[in-house]
């Protein structure tokens, strides 16, 4: 049992005070020429408030807690406390360690409950009551897309947390939403060649897919990537979300003639389906004269922890891993580890980086005015944040960087050492054309919360 320090939220009271101020502002005088000076939640005092909206209840609560730890660390570093973490390794960087644009960073938190509705309600509280200038976080694509739409409607920048669906920066992309995390398409492009190399090109894959939007996009991406390399797809089967016992979906796999099982599941579904697949002896079966294999395209450390023994030798992809050896990773892992006594998860990493990137963009733009901040983020090319050279592409607000193919470690040396990096797939190999998923970013200027 691990007990964590409770998040400190000193910004809360200030937030309450600001809420009063925001409310008192009549709602009509912030258009046109005044927009630049008087945009939504323009910071007025000596501080600026950020909103961190993470799951605190429901099955992703632990992941949310890790995201929150990362956010707190980011705020600390931005304010010049602690050892500075990635502030020292990020380049180019305009961050000075004195807050953002000289204003001290404060923050408020909220509970997304991993529900689109609740997440939006919580985000609106942050915007309307606490006066946040930027909000971020979350652990599911549906929640990210819902919040991103809200960001566009209200005119407050949203920096996505963990979201892996192609739609987030595809058909549902928004001008006010930014994603640092990688997506299902990249997972497919990175994982496909490795699978072909390790398991051969003559394979028949059987997909079990969580029956909702993210599951479908991942199934499609992995299917396309593997079929392009010569694999066949035996069957794709949709499973209800939260099915718990997957036995009735697993037994047909054994007699389908497939020799690879691909689990397009996340969270508890992934923990259960993987554990159960291993119990059904799939790891030690021979089909078509080949070793039967299981693949989990999207890995997370917490899920690996939940699945325990079952992850050994299972391939998947990951956005980042604390065991990478570049200086950005080392700096972040060190300060995170010293603060909390455990290494950060990839969800924590993406949230930390996103916060720094936002702060840096505001410094670069010299203002908090969202259209200018957005322009500073668009097309931003940076390094030293743990993923190698990275581009925030202007066309779809997706980060392009190396993708990790990881594998469950056979002999983990500790509870934190469950995954090993099998291959770092270079950025060029996972880059795609911005228009393949359609969608439209929308305008820079929106009437905003003041309209």
């Amino acid at each position, binding site marked *: 049992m691990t007990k964590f320090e409770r998040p400190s939220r000193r910004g809360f009271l200030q937030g309450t005070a600001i809420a009063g101020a925001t409310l008192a502002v009549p709602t009509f005088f912030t258009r046109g020429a005044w927009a630049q000076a008087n945009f939504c939640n323009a910071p007025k005092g000596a501080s600026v408030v950020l909103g961190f909206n993470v799951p605190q209840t429901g099955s992703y609560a632990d992941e949310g807690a890790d995201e929150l730890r990362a956010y707190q660390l980011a705020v600390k570093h931005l304010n010049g406390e602690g050892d500075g973490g990635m502030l020292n390794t990020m380049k180019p960087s305009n961050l000075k360690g004195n807050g953002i644009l000289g204003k001290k960073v404060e923050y408020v938190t909220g509970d997304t409950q991993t529900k689109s509705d609740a997440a939006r309600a919580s985000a609106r509280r942050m915007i309307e009551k606490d006066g946040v200038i930027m909000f971020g976080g979350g652990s599911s694509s549906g929640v990210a897309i819902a919040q991103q739409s809200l960001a566009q409607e209200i005119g407050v920048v949203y920096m996505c947390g963990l979201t892996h669906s192609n*739609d987030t920066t595809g058909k*549902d992309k928004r001008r006010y939403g930014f994603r640092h995390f990688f997506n299902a398409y990249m997972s497919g492009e990175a994982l496909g060649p490795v699978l072909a190399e390790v398991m051969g090109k003559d394979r028949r894959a059987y997909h079990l897919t969580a029956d909702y939007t993210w599951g479908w996009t991942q199934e499609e991406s992995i299917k396309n990537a593997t079929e392009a390399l010569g694999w066949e797809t035996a069957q794709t089967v949709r499973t209800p979300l939260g099915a718990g016992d997957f036995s009735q979906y697993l037994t047909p796999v054994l007699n389908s003639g497939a020799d690879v099982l691909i689990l397009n599941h996340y969270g508890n579904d992934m923990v259960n389906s993987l554990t159960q697949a291993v119990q059904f002896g799939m790891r030690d079966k021979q089909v078509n004269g080949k070793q039967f294999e299981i693949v989990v395209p999207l890995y997370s450390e917490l899920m690996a922890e939940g699945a325990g023994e079952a992850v050994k030798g299972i391939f998947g992809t990951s956005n980042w891993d604390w065991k990478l050896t570049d200086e950005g990773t080392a700096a972040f892992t060190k300060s995170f580890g010293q603060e909390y006594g455990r290494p950060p998860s990839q969800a924590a990493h993406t949230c930390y980086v996103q916060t720094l990137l936002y702060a840096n963009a505001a410094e670069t733009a010299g203002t908090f005015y969202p259209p200018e901040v957005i322009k500073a983020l668009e097309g931003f090319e940076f390094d030293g944040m743990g993923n190698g050279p990275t581009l925030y592409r202007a066309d779809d607000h997706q980060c392009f960087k190396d993708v990790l193919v990881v594998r469950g470690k056979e002999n983990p040396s500790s509870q934190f050492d469950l995954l090993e990096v099998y291959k770092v797939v270079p950025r060029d190999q996972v880059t795609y054309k911005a228009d393949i998923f359609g969608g439209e970013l929308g305008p820079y200027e929106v009437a905003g919360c003041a309209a």
Partner: protein
Amino acid sequence: MDTTNTTADLKSATMDADTHSAHYHTKSEVPTQLPPLGPDMRPLWPPKVDILMTVLFGIAVFSMPIWLQPFGAAYPDLMQRFAIFGIFAIGFNILFGLTGYLSFGHAAFLGIGSYAAVWSFKLLSLNVVPAIILSVLIAGVFAAAIGYVSLRRSGIYFSILTLAFAQMCYNLAYSVLTPITNGETGLRVLRNDPRVLDALVGSSEVAIPRASFFGISMTGMAGFWACAVCLMIAFYIALRITRSPFGMMLRGIKSNQTRMAYVGFNTRPYTLVAFIVSGMYAGLAGALLAVVDPLAGAERMQWTASGEVVLMTILGGAGTLLGPFIGAVLIKYFENIFSALGHTTLSDAFSFLPDGVREFAVSIVSPFVGEGWHLTLGVLFVLVVIFLPGGLAEGFRRIGRMFRGGNKSETSS
């Protein structure tokens, strides 16, 4: 506020007639006299009083931006939610509070209302009027269908039936009905939707699609005023229903359905109407959710969401007019404000205490706030059901009675 003694009512309430075991326990407790149907059949209150009450209620609601200020809840989104879930709970109370039928599936109608409203925004017009009318009607149709089937049973069977229907709606909406509901992400209004009515008057092009009332955008405070107006109307209608002969009939059903049947009433049509009305209330609430925030997510149909409205109604006081609204406000307040409190906030709040004591106080309180807000809710709920079966409304009444010094007369406002 309420005319009858809620505790006694709940104690003798209905579901006993259909269970053998409860029958053993309560045999002696079933009220031996008929519910006082005769004289009470006429409306108890002249409409003037009703209007006065509605106005008072309205003043309380419309002044929320002022008196909620010290609680940190006076921001548009939360006040909108107070009003919307108030409507939902008041509507739920028309079914549960009056007839005693405990539905565990009312969130389905809320969700259906939301989807209908968003589709109206997408296909017809961004104006809220057609959206609200459409969603109330569609929710009513669904309520009629589900109610017709579910009301063939009573007691726990009725609960399970409504639960089953709602879960089917939720599961399908999340997965195979994604073309209609947009599944996990939720149905949103997009810039390039057709909006035929708007196109007719040549205004279908908007940068950011937002619901509006003839040009007034329904965001922020404007959205709250709209919800508050709807809440007042909903409250007045609920008041009239409660006071009407129809309302008395429903209470009669609650206190003893079998007897009502013996007296010669066919109770089914009455309960069905109550079910449909409360379903339409839920549809209205769902529509308003979409009005202030044009997104309809499937989660609002899940059975836990149905459970939430039950919690609201019970917490506030089932069978009373104001109770459900109080419950809704309380639960939404917990969800939005308590969940954001943390260790440091608490330390600040207890800063007047000496160091050691403060740490102790913080460590006692902190499991109940922040991510522990569910725990607070659960504890509060258990306590209310045990000690205040009439909900907080009964609590207020007891306090009121105490002040009037043991005055035993009915406290019907």
